[in-house]
């Protein structure tokens, strides 16, 4: 098991290098010049030259890349061109917000998607199945921003049950923090629940026709135990893999939803950075997101092995 994890970690290294090169070059080939954005209206040639020198923008691109990677390895992701704050500090401020939002969204997605998927699989071809599928399809096609606005209108404005927007750090007031984040998490979660439901349904349908499920029934187990114990356990593999990927996506931030509920997470940071050509911040975020994805994938692979006795030996 340990050697498996080590092997998977080694495979992750070239992936991270590739991603870093890609991110770095993408930035360089994008139109627009950060120095012009910083120099302001006058565009004083001297100021521009000074800024270029200050941020080493005159160096050959490979040199710029290597110095960036070198700094990144020591935890120095550069300084935001816009706010002059260290990028790591900016990310450090936003990351807990995004992780909390992602976790809460995922809980919603799992709590809705998996039971709905199981139910529609065991009631295949019945009204329950159709309703679940229609709801899932709606979940996929209703834009998050619309659902967000509707929820604010109903829950916050009309019923005044939950705050419409804002953010309270979790360590400051956990209850309040969760309360404020329920709505954005629900909006993000329902969209993912639809995907999860579809995958759970098809995984369950495959497993339910298997010989060992027939054996479980032949033993005289209750239908509940047959489905939740024998069938679901074997349907878990694709569900776990998908959940890890979805969680990775959530870490990357949800621009629109964060905007609507004014959640100060990654999404807003990315948008601001891109509009201001704040290279260092964009690079830092993409790097953190990519690493997050790789970690989630690694966890999924480990879960995969834990769930499959055949892969353990």
């Amino acid at each position: 098991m340990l050697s498996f994890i080590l092997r998977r970690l080694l495979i992750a290294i070239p992936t991270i290098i590739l991603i870093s090169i890609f991110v770095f070059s993408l930035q360089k080939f994008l139109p627009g010049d950060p120095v012009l954005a910083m120099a302001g209206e006058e565009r004083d040639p001297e100021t521009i030259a000074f800024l270029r020198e200050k941020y080493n923008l005159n160096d050959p691109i490979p040199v710029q890349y290597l110095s960036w990677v070198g700094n990144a390895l020591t935890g120095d992701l550069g300084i935001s061109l816009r706010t002059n704050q260290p990028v790591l500090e900016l990310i450090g401020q936003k990351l807990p917000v995004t992780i909390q939002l992602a976790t809460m969204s995922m809980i919603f997605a799992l709590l809705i998607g998996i039971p709905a998927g199981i139910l529609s699989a065991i009631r295949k071809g019945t009204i329950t199945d159709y309703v679940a599928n229609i709801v899932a399809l709606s979940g996929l096609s209703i834009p998050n921003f619309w659902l967000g606005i509707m929820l604010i209108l109903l829950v916050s404005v009309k019923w005044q049950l939950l705050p419409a927007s804002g953010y309270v750090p979790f360590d400051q007031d956990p209850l309040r923090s969760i309360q404020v984040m329920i709505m954005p998490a629900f909006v993000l979660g329902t969209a993912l629940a639809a995907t999860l439901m579809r995958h759970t349904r098809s995984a369950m349908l495959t497993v339910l026709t298997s010989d060992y499920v027939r054996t479980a029934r032949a033993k005289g187990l209750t239908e509940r135990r047959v489905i939740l114990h024998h069938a679901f356990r074997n349907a878990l593999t694709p569900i776990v893999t998908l959940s890890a990927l979805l969680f990775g996506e959530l870490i990357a931030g949800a621009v629109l939803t964060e905007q609507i509920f004014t959640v100060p997470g990654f999404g807003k940071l990315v948008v601001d950075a891109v509009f201001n050509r704040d290279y260092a911040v964009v690079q830092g975020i993409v790097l953190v997101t990519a690493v997050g994805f790789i970690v989630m994938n690694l966890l999924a692979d480990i879960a995969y092995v834990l769930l499959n006795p055949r892969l353990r030996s």
Partner: protein
Amino acid sequence: MAGKLVHQAPDTEPAPLLDVRELTLSFGKDRTNLLQGVRYSVAAGETLCIVGESGCGKSVSSLAIMGLLPAGVARIEAADIRFQGKPHDLGDQAVLRRRRGSEIAMIFQEPMTSLNPAFRVGDQIAEAVKAHRDVSDADARSRAVEMLRRVGIPAPESRMREYPHQLSGGMRQRVMIAMALANDPALLIADEPTTALDVTIQSQILDLIRELQSETGMGTIMITHDLGVVAEIADRVAVMYAGTIVESGSAARIFDDPQHPYTIGLMSSVPKLTGPRERLSTVPGTVPTAETMPPGCRFSTRCPFAQDICAETPPERDFGDGHRVLCHFAPLDEHLELA
């Protein structure tokens, strides 16, 4: 293998343990009868072999009795089944579930896929015990160890902790048998339990089933297409063709004096090691599908003796000792002499 290995039929017919008097199943939109008036019985301590080609409905009939047919696929048109003298209601899922694995147990053709790959074999057997008995986990596990030992698995305590993929096919079938018999069922239905196994393992499994049967006195229904298996293990035989039992009786009678043209064809398609060399005969044609099912006798499209009358439902002729044949021309010898 066929021939002299046949068991002697008991002198008096014991009271049946499972008595299927009528079982008719339909499927599809046009409600074609998949099983048509299936009729067989098995007594305690007795082995009934249901023989027939693949797709003839052998497995379907036993799955129906277990209540294991997938819902919404097949529809029970008529059923009159008695188990231990009392009606066995195929509509009562709760009773069927309690009966499954405790009074009637079943093992399947594919030991490779019939065990859940995610759980240890010991847990899977203990689970079967706990499903029907109010016992502690420890008691269920010690019962599981006992059963593994009984089916001839060496070092059962350590095997308990293994996963199905760590066992060979023969071992897995033994585990299946241990699981099926953990609650001392009165009836074991074995659906081609040896088909997927090597020949040497096949006879070991058959021996094991026979041995356990003589220990426990359970009745056994063995579903097979292998006449070698039938010769080795059957007390009684029911020959199934296209969803109908065309002939049934003691194994001795079926092997020595088959009366239905299909049974005769089936018997002569088995090569013999003794006697003069002959060309192997086969039953010509193929089993009719739902669309091509003839009226009356279902074998008439392939029967060398078929006449116009065969379009009518054949009568059941009883030759005594439970030897029954569904044919207009039974006994065949008489008609052949007349012709």
